[in-house]
């Protein structure tokens, strides 16, 4: 009998039903296909997370750049007189000029520049970190930290002051997806410069070590934080550590992102203190 005899029925012969493969073979085949599909789905997930989300973020950044440029032109800026000791005199008022009881000059109040609040979920600032290649050119910041906000840019927590204002401005960003703006936040060391450009101008901050942050805000003492193994200035906290957004005297910027990379189990937090910018000279005493 030849191979042809077994493979095809002879002309005129009654076709026989194809033999069903054994159960073991069928199970093995099914498991094999399931593994192939699972592998393809996983590969698709990796490609989606690393490249598709970043491509989408880049597209959104292009749109946000236009929004930020518009914001820089249209934002209302109000000068606010601040007396020594941090008392705000009156929003929009000219700094009063007066003399003391015996005719000596009272130091003129300094002027704090305040910009109008941005529209929710709109872009209003650019964050730059010269020591991180990804952020050398800057990443647009939107008002809000909803999931959809953070897909487009870094997000400013609306309940915190705007960057460049007294207090603790908090900005969050993705670590490994959506353009991964804060991918290398763990590399920042004390003294590294962070710049945030708003309608007022560029506000420069210097990264501070944890003990300096605690010295500025004693309420943070005793909080549960972990140091970074990389030796960076940031600290690692639980995802629900909302205390990091609490007020700090002076002008501060707090950046938060996921930690470790490719996991959302913890948060990496970097604190930076204002050192230069339109309001830097005033903010030391303002509150």
């Amino acid at each position, binding site marked *: 009998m030849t191979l042809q005899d077994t493979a095809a029925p002879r002309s005129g012969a009654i076709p026989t039903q194809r033999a069903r493969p054994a159960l073991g073979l069928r199970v093995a085949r099914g498991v094999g*296909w399931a593994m192939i599909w699972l592998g393809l*789905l996983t590969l*698709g*997930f990796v490609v*989606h*997370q690393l490249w*598709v*989300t970043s491509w989408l973020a880049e597209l959104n950044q292009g749109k946000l750049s236009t929004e930020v440029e518009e914001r820089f032109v249209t934002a209302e800026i109000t000068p606010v007189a601040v007396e020594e000791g941090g008392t705000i005199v009156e929003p929009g008022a000219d700094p009063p000029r007066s003399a003391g009881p015996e005719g000596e000059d009272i130091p003129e109040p300094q002027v704090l520049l305040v910009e109008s609040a941005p529209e929710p979920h709109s872009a209003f600032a650019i964050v730059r970190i010269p020591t991180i290649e990804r952020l050398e050119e800057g990443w647009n910041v939107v008002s809000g*930290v909803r*999931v959809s906000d*953070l*897909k487009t840019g870094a*997000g400013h*927590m609306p309940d915190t002051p705007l960057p460049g204002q007294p207090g603790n401005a908090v900005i*969050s*960003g*993705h*670590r*490994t*997806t*959506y353009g991964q703006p*804060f991918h290398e936040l763990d590399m920042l060391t004390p003294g590294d410069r962070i710049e945030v450009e708003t309608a007022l101008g560029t506000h420069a901050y210097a990264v501070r070590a944890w003990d300096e942050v605690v010295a500025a805000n004693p309420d943070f003492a005793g909080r549960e934080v972990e140091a970074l193994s990389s030796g960076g200035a940031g600290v690692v*906290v639980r*995802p*629900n*550590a*909302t205390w*990091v*957004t609490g007020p700090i005297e002076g002008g501060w910027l707090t950046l*938060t*992102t*996921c930690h470790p990379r*490719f*996991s*959302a189990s913890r*948060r*990496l*937090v970097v604190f930076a203190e204002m050192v230069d910018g339109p309001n830097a000279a005033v903010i030391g005493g303002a509150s």
Partner: protein
Amino acid sequence: MSWIPRGFRALPGPMPFRILQAIIIVAILLVVLHFFYEWVGGTFLDTGGRVE
């Protein structure tokens, strides 16, 4: 994998219409997959770094 050509042959209408249906079905599947990947990534991989 034989279910893919079998499924394609089971689509109604002439060949161009079948191709159009197949493209639409694949596009819908990709969109569903995109949102599924977004959810998994946003929940377990990288939430965006906010504290809440």
